[in-house]
């Protein structure tokens, strides 16, 4: 723990020394993105339809020209309705039902971002967020549902470009893609990991 603390301190000092700048240095920037998300891995067993009802956001403070740190969050809504089918019950009985699965996730992440070309017309960046994930899982047999709220781990590596409205300006649009690594172990819900892509805006709050 002590060692990691030292590494962190060195990193922070190093990052602070790495450069100074105009666009993001010393500013608190809000980045909000509309997002389209596609389930991957075991999540596809529960929902395999792409969601068009998601967003991702971050609130990052520029500790220097290239690096900013802060918080990331988002919201993802996944839904799938399976046609009527007969399912076997544990005791030998049968149930015929239209099955609907509904999953919402809200990650809360500690996030860092690295901007490769601050001040340029197009600024590619990469970032990563690590933290927790609030998952709401509902399953309906016909109109009869059950629900569970779970908390899990989440990691969100992302890459994108920032295109300022004016050259060197702090506000602009973002085009990004991310991978949401979201493990969970609850009955048939074995993970809610997904790919996401979207567009948004970024602007300073002060």
């Amino acid at each position, binding site marked *: 723990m002590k060692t990691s603390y030292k590494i962190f301190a060195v990193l922070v000092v190093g990052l602070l020394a790495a450069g100074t700048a105009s666009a993001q240095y010393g500013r608190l920037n809000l980045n909000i993105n509309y997002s389209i998300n596609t389930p991957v891995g075991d999540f596809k067993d529960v929902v395999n339809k792409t969601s068009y009802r998601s967003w991702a956001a971050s609130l990052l403070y520029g500790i220097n020209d290239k690096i900013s740190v802060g918080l990331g969050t988002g919201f993802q809504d996944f839904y799938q309705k399976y046609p009527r089918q007969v399912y076997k019950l544990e005791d030998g*009985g049968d149930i015929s039902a*239209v099955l609907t699965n509904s999953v919402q996730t809200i990650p809360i992440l500690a996030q860092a971002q690295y901007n490769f070309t601050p001040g340029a017309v197009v600024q590619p960046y990469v970032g990563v967020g690590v933290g927790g994930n609030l998952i709401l899982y509902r399953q309906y047999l016909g109109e*009869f549902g059950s629900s569970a709220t779970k908390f899990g781990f989440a990691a969100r590596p992302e890459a994108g470009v920032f295109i300022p409205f004016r050259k060197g300006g702090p506000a602009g649009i973002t085009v990004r893609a991310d991978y949401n690594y979201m493990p969970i172990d609850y009955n048939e819900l074995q993970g809610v990991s997904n790919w996401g892509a979207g567009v948004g805006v970024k602007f300073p709050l002060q």
Partner: protein
Amino acid sequence: MKNVLLTISAVASLGLLGSCTKEPLNNLTEGESRIYITNYDSTASFASYKTFSIVDSVAVISNNRLEGKAVSDYDIAIIAALKSRLQQQGYTLVNKSQQPDLGINVSRIYNTSTGVISYPDYWGSYYGFYDPFYWGYPGIGYGFPSYYGTYSVTEGALSIDALDLKDAGADKKIEGVWMGLVRGSGVFRAANAPGQVNTLFDQSGYFKTNQ
């Protein structure tokens, strides 16, 4: 100031996006809302039964109380559908005085409580509402295996029970050998009756005889 407005509008947009969760219940048709549950006594030999008789009215059970027997359009439709489908399964319809092998009870269950009841409770609560005397066995009780699980009843349900009358005298008990339960929206619409009976029997492939 510009940034404050931008922030407010951005947060408002997020709120709107967050509220556009696709709600499962708003995306179901009436037919899709219904579920059909069947279960049976795995020791029963359905091929050994040859004849059946069915009640001439439907028991209406509300909040665990027998309200009475009824013969609504729906009740007539469901009884007719059962007669037709059981004959398709190879059974012969006889009068209850002709010692049928199987007796078929039909109940409409209304429960406005939001409590959770289990299947054993379900049997325990409802099987007695048809007097065994109806089937010619005064003084003996019904017996039902304790099935599985729990489910909540907050609306109407159609319940159909198949009873083993062939062995009732020897067993001193009228055993339930099959149950079908339909729940969801539009359960008690007469036009839905044949479809409901067919769905229950389609998923109960074992429920047939060879004559």
